[in-house]
C-alpha cells in the first residue's frame, strides 16, 4: 500500500481523472474532497460491506418474504392479519390479471 502524507489543501491524483483533496482535519476525522468522472463510483468502504450484507440478508429472507407477500393474493381475510396490506398495494398494483407473461415465468 502506498502511504502519502498530505496537509489540508493538498491533494493527490489517482489515474488521469481522480483528485482527492484534504479539505480539513477535525479532531480524529479527515474531511476529503473527491473529484472523479461520473462513471467512477466513490463510496465509503463500509457502505460496500453494508450492501453486501444486505444482499446476503435478502437471500436469507427470501422464503420469509414470500410468506409475507403471499397474503396479498386472494386469500381468506384472516390470513392478512399482521401483514402490511399497503405493501401489497404498492407491489401488486401492476399485477397482470391475465397472469404473468414473458420468458422465465416461474
Amino acid at each position, binding site marked *: 500500500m502506498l502511504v502519502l502524507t498530505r496537509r489540508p489543501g493538498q491533494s493527490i491524483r489517482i489515474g488521469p481523472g481522480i483528485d482527492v483533496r484534504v479539505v480539513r482535519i477535525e479532531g480524529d476525522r479527515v474531511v476529503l474532497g473527491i473529484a472523479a468522472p461520473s462513471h467512477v463510483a466513490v463510496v465509503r468502504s463500509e457502505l460496500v460491506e453494508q450492501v453486501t450484507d444486505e444482499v446476503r440478508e435478502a437471500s436469507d429472507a427470501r422464503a420469509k418474504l414470500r410468506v409475507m407477500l403471499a397474503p396479498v393474493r386472494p386469500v381468506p381475510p384472516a390470513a392478512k392479519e399482521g401483514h402490511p396490506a399497503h405493501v401489497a398495494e*404498492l407491489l401488486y398494483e401492476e399485477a397482470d390479471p391475465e397472469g404473468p407473461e414473458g420468458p422465465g415465468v416461474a
Partner: protein
Amino acid sequence: MSQPTPPAELVFPDGLVGLPQLIRHSLSTVPDSALYELVSRDDPAFGFILAPADQIKPGVTDRLRSRQLVAESEWVLAILAVHGEPPAVTANLAGPIVIDLEKATARQLVLEDPEFPLQIPVAEAV
C-alpha cells in the same frame, strides 16, 4: 405503466457487490405480482426478490440516468429484504440492480447518497 419483459437469464460480468463469484443468474416474474425473483445459477441457494425501483421511490431511474449511472436501455430494480420485529419489508436503494435489457447483462451499483437508503421501508415508500 407496463413493466419491461426481463431476460430469463442474466449475466453479471462483475458478479454482485462483494460476491464476484455470482455471475450467472435466472430472473423470473413472481406470479400475480410486479415482483421478480433472481436466483444464482452459480449458487442456486442464493437468490432474492426484487421490485422495480421506481415503484419503491418514483423517479429513481431518471435520477440515476441524469447522473449518467444508468443508460436508456437499462432498467433498475431494488432488492427486497425483511427486517425488524414485527418483520417489515424493506427495499435496498443503495445497492440497486441495473439490467441491460438488450444485452441481458446486469450490474449492481453502490450509491453514496442519503436519497438512496440501504433499507427504505416499503410501506413508507409512497
